[in-house]
């Protein structure tokens, strides 16, 4: 079965996002590049850049080195161009600046290793992907950053491949649990009702919006405070028996909901921009669910596959087959790919 061609039918840009550092993201990227070659698919390869000095110290080692084949489109800054051992025809020097020079858009004319990097902000990134698609790429693979929370945001790509691995925990059970938790969050249902979306869209994007049902009609009321730790008590006061939905513009942490009387969870649905706004541990999340806590998002994240890396850099490892099987058991609907075997 052609895995990537199947993806390419529905998704133009796919980011590979690591659950943590060393969860095998670059190995996964290389795996999919090989896969694309075998399937004869022309791809573009880029990464979500990271700017700022501190991260750049990290990125010196973090910028993934990948083996690219003739015909692949790739983005990289000028300073890394000189270091690439692949033959790269420069197609365009973009206006996207990085600490390593402006980003070049290149086409591989001699296969070889390349260190890739892309523009830092989402808008530039989208533009670059658009350029690659116009140049004939059928699918774009994006090396997402280590920090999954910010980078997996839906606007970065159409779909996500989640790289998980032994590095998360010494307990195989815990790794599977954490991964399933994230997959669960990313796949949270989207708000389907158009009227509801419009009500939220019409209010200030920075404020909490409570939506009450009065005589069978939805009425929005914006709450003039930011999602903060103090918001919790105010929220509890504001949620009346008519309240049906609560839109939170910022992060959903345990603190935001801790003072809300649990019985109220049954009558309201919490709404968020996207699943990356949730910062609640797996266990606490399960407890909340049991109490009737419900969340919907304006935009969820499509997870297309899970890659597993059974080896942790600190030395311990899981059995390959065992790990894959456990993951398959927890997430039966997703392709599980062991990038090491």
């Amino acid at each position: 079965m052609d895995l990537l061609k199947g993806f390419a039918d529905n998704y133009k840009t796919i980011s590979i996002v690591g659950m943590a550092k060393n969860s095998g993201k670059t190995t996964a990227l290389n795996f999919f590049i090989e896969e694309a070659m075998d399937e004869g698919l022309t791809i573009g390869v880029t990464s979500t850049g990271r700017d700022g000095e501190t991260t750049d110290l990290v990125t010196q080692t973090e910028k993934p080195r990948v083996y690219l084949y003739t015909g692949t489109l790739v983005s990289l800054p000028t300073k890394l161009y000189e270091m690439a051992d692949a033959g790269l025809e420069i197609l365009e020097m973009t206006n996207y600046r990085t600490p390593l020079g402006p980003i070049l858009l290149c086409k591989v004319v001699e296969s070889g290793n390349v260190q890739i990097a892309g523009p830092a902000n989402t808008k530039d990134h989208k533009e670059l992907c658009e350029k690659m698609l116009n140049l004939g790429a059928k699918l774009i693979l994006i090396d997402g950053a280590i920090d999954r929370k910010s980078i997996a945001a839906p606007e970065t790509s159409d779909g996500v491949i989640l790289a998980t691995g032994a590095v998360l925990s010494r307990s195989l059970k815990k790794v599977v649990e954490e991964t399933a938790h994230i997959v669960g969050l990313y796949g949270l249902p989207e708000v389907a009702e158009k009227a509801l979306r419009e009500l939220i869209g019409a209010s200030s994007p920075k404020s909490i919006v409570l939506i009450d049902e009065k005589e069978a009609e939805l009425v929005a009321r914006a709450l003039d405070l930011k999602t903060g730790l103090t918001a919790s008590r105010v929220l509890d006061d504001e949620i009346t028996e008519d309240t049906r939905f609560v839109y939170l513009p910022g992060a959903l942490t345990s603190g935001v909901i801790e003072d809300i009387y649990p019985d109220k969870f049954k009558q309201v649905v919490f709404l968020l921009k996207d699943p990356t706004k949730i910062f609640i541990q797996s266990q606490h999340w399960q407890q909340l669910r049991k109490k009737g806590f419900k969340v919907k998002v304006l935009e969820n994240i499509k997870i297309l596959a899970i890659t597993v890396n059974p080896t942790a850099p600190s030395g311990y490892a899981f059995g390959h087959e065992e790990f894959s099987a456990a993951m398959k058991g927890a997430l039966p609907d997703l392709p599980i790919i062991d990038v090491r075997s």
Partner: protein
Amino acid sequence: MAQRLANVKTRNQAGFDFVVSSLNILTPFGEAVKKNLQAFFPGEEGLLEEELDRVAFLKKSREKEKTFWDSVEMTFMEMKESSFTIRRAKKDVLTVVEIFELKQLILAMEFLRNALEGYRGQDGERIPDVFLLDSLAEILMELDPRNEGLKTFYLYDEFSALLTSLREEKRQLELSIRKERKILVKKLKDEKGITLTPRYECIISKSDQPRISEMECTPEICRMDEDYMSVTYELKDTEAINKMIQQMDRIDQALDEEELKVRESLSRAIGEYEKPLLDNCERIGLLDFTYAKAVMAIRRNLVKPEIIKDHLVEIEEGRHIEVESLLEKKGQSYRPVSLYLKQGVTCITGANMGGKTVSLKLAGLVALMAQYGFFVPAKMVKVGLSQHIQMLIGDTQSLERGLSSFGGEMEELREALDLSKPRTLLLIDELASGTNPKEGTALSKALVSYLMKKQYISLFTTHFDSVTEIPGVVNLQVTGLVNADFDKLKRELKYANRKERIQLVAKYMDYRLMVVEGQGDVPKEAIRIAEILGLYDEIISSAKEYL
């Protein structure tokens, strides 16, 4: 050092900096021209005339041939600062990225050269010679061996036969290694039932001891990695493969050397063209800058100033464009002012809020713009070039240097007089207004008498009437509120808030200047303005009594 027409403060206060910074410069070369902007001095009228003719040509051309200039603008925007790289090409070896950038620039220059050479206006006019570019067709051919006309760049095979053969050799070796390994993989699978991943690896769990032992006895594979759960084996390269890998290393080295040679020879080739390349940069800068002036002339409705021999400044319906653009943002329009200034002293007197200072700035701005080769904001302008232009305006007090505003003013005046020479344009705003009127008047009169004897055009704004009594002083008076309908104004004022009151003053104010012959009776409108702006009735009526 080149001589200076006006100091930084004068250019800034007159609004000339605003004009220059609102030019829409598109290339780094145009920016360089802007940074080293030079004025034309008396004696250079011919050169200035030529510059103004070029602006006129571009203005007309831009109005008629929009498509042509749109494409020129697009080409301008593609150009990046590369003069440093051009200079480096002669002795250093450029990187691939640098050669790519130069190729882009050269392509853009060639496009522009052909466009400019091929241009014919509606009456058959051509682009002035100063803007035409040198041909770079030959060096472009060297950088584009496939003659594709594309902006892309790579150390193409066509650059060197050796490069081609080395690359081909490398590709063949890669294929051979792959083929050899595939054969081994197949053999392992067929004969021993061992399946390897596409990366020629195989991971065996340690709990599967029989398989581990089996692997250990298979000579085609070797142990690569091990942890407490499993062992990873990988395909062992045969002697033949190892030889090929060694050969690949040698080819890689040779490739590096050959690529360096290719880059070096391309750099030298570019170095040969240093002069035409740099000349083109300069000419493009000139065209970009002059074109920006023409575009501004269209957008701001500017006219070509008439440059004359006599030292005078005549402005018919002039507009201070910095003030004008501020008013535009508020949806108001600028009411033009006419001025005729010849050598000697001219005083502007009249109402507060009557635009005296703006008119003074207007004279400075128009003179500066004309002398820097710009079109000017007026219906008609005649300018005789000045040797020096200086403006004394506003608060010059300096806490740092322990100068009060009066002290600062006197110091600056001294400096201005020091710098002045024949054909100076001196613009002074309310001299000595920060001291007692008795001495202020005396000082002003004395200065006027001093300036009357000089070959300067001096323009004063003042509230001291008697300054205009000195024989020979031309007195321009702001028309002011004289013709305003006060009943109507009063009715409107009744409900006006603070902002509207200011607007009302502007609405009823006649900013035009009229020449007052003989000893003029300066209209007293300060109290009235204070009244309109809402000062307490009690104070206003009391003030009227004191008067």
